[in-house]
């Protein structure tokens, strides 16, 4: 038996292919939306992986440092280093801000790190790591910064000495790493007028304006002894929970393991975004189904006389139903191929990372076939209701 569906498609291939391409662009958008979500999850995981930490020590009763503000003393790492099972620990700060380079601003997450400690970028694509205590930076390549360029963070210029890749915040902003001291200053730096005003206020306070006290108070006001978190690497042979529990208990701090931090980032920080994208995916699936249903229904209605003739000359209902369903699935296949190619072409052009996973493509393919089969039911119902007597007329 010949394939009636294939013959019909070949006969009117132009109409079919162009319709499939239109549907394909819609499917491409759907796959891209899924890719945007995967990209967000991947960004979150990359953030954790690239930190090199096994534990995050943050302010008590906070979800810091990524999901909520957290503030701990910058000398905390010393006492944590003394805890059992701790291999290394270092303070870290995170600050999302505009970083100026020449005439342009780049939205970036400025990370204050201790050279050679946990939190330094895991690998570089050019240049070197930060070796000086001040005014050097390693930037993610997505910032567009080049080696040797001067970038301005608050009041200071930093030289880009290294470039890294896929170091982004959970929001997808590229990271710029600078020395911890500089980052602490940038995080809490007041403008000069505010500093003068603060000094005058302090000097006017009789409680502070005493020899030896005033200088100490002013000095404490103009420095920042806080960081957002302490990143901890654990020794081999210890589990994360074994090391985390004593820190929680004795230091009265919040400690998150990698699994817990991943849960915070994926389930809490990007939960709303994922719901938003999920809603988009549902709407796009419904729109795709409606379009396929409409197209197949229209194509079928255009063949009512032929269907009546086919029924009159003895074609089985299942042969006619198969013809319509095969055309719907064929349309979906063309749409999927066009959609996959489109998504692959335009995904790298998105400002944020879009991760097109083969698993999502497979799930998308199955969903499209299912949607097409579902969408063809309306046309099949209409075709099966056609009276073969219509071919005879009268």
């Amino acid at each position: 038996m010949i394939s009636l569906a294939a013959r019909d498609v070949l006969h009117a291939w132009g109409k079919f292919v162009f319709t499939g391409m239109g549907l394909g662009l819609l499917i491409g958008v759907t796959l891209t939306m899924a890719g945007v979500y995967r990209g967000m999850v991947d960004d979150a995981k990359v953030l954790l992986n690239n930190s090199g930490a096994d534990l995050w020590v943050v302010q008590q009763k906070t979800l810091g440092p990524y999901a909520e503000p957290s503030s701990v003393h910058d000398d905390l790492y010393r006492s944590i280093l003394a805890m059992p099972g701790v291999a290394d620990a270092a303070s870290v700060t995170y600050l999302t801000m505009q970083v100026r380079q020449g005439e342009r601003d780049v939205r970036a997450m400025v990370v204050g790190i201790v050279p050679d400690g946990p939190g330094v970028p895991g690998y570089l694509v050019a240049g070197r790591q930060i070796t000086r205590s001040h005014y050097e930076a390693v930037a993610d390549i997505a910032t567009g910064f080049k080696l040797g360029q001067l970038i301005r963070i608050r009041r200071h210029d930093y030289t880009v000495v290294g470039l890294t890749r896929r170091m982004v915040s959970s929001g997808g902003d590229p990271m710029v790493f600078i020395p911890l001291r500089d980052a602490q200053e940038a995080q809490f730096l007041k403008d000069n007028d505010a500093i003068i005003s603060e000094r005058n206020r302090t000097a006017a306070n009789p409680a502070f304006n005493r020899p030896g006290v005033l200088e100490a108070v002013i000095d404490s006001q103009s420095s920042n002894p806080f960081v957002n978190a302490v990143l901890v690497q654990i020794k081999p042979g210890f589990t994360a929970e074994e090391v985390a529990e004593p820190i929680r208990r004795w230091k009265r701090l919040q400690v998150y393991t990698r699994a817990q931090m991943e849960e915070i980032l994926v389930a809490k920080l990007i939960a709303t975004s994922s719901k938003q994208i999920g809603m988009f995916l549902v709407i796009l699936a419904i729109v795709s189904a409606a379009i396929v249903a409409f197209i197949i229904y229209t194509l079928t209605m255009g063949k009512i006389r032929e269907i009546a003739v086919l029924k009159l000359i003895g074609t089985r209902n299942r042969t006619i139903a198969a013809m319509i369903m095969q055309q719907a699935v064929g349309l979906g296949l063309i749409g999927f191929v066009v959609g996959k190619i489109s998504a692959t072409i335009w995904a790298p052009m998105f400002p944020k990372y879009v991760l097109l996973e083969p698993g999502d493509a497979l799930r998308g393919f199955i969903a499209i076939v299912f949607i097409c089969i579902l969408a063809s039911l309306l046309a099949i119902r209409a075709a099966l209701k056609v009276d073969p007597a219509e071919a005879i007329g009268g």
Partner: protein
Amino acid sequence: MEDGTKQAEGILIEGMRKRYGEGDTAVDALKEVNMRVMPGEVVGLIGPSGSGKSTLLKCLGAVIEPTAGRMTLGREVIYDNGWQIRDLRALRRDKIGFVFQAPYLIPFLDVTDNVALLPMLAGHPNAESRKRAVELLEALDVAHRAAAMPSQLSGGEQQRVAIARALVNRPPVILADEPTAPLDSQRALAVIRILNRMARQYQTAIIVVTHDEKIIPTFRRIYHIRDGRTHEEAGEGREFE
């Protein structure tokens, strides 16, 4: 194709009636239809609009169910106050050929596959079905258009392909509904000549429903249908003497 195979008995219709609706709104479209068409014979079925021609054709084509009567196809009783055959679709496919006013060829199949589709639907292998189709196309002088699409054919060629499609499963009866309506005199007569030749060659009983004054004189026998009743009369039988 076994030329000249004898189809026993042709088609016999006795006391066929068809009523639409019930009660006060009931309409008797067919009141008393009696017909007999022998194998190899082409008869005309003539009547004014609303006389019941289309209803009769639909009953004979097993598309709608008569209300009463008896219909025999060959030696097989098809209808006897109820269908005697369960699979009417297979009956239409294997035992009844249809030729319509417009050829109604499937536009996305070429000429060969338009004809070969029926044996394929009946479960015959594609190669065998196409062989049978080509043989018929040769017999109808359209084999040279075997690979063409229906849209590339002239009206006469399309109608010949439609006749080939009706004959391809060698049905004992062919129902032709105004097969010459869209054709000029010459082509209309050519179609009737072909139908007569095919009827004799394949021993098929052919009933031609027509209004066409050009072809009415060609029938040897004519059934007039008026007010749901058939009346037989002899035709002139011109053109084929």
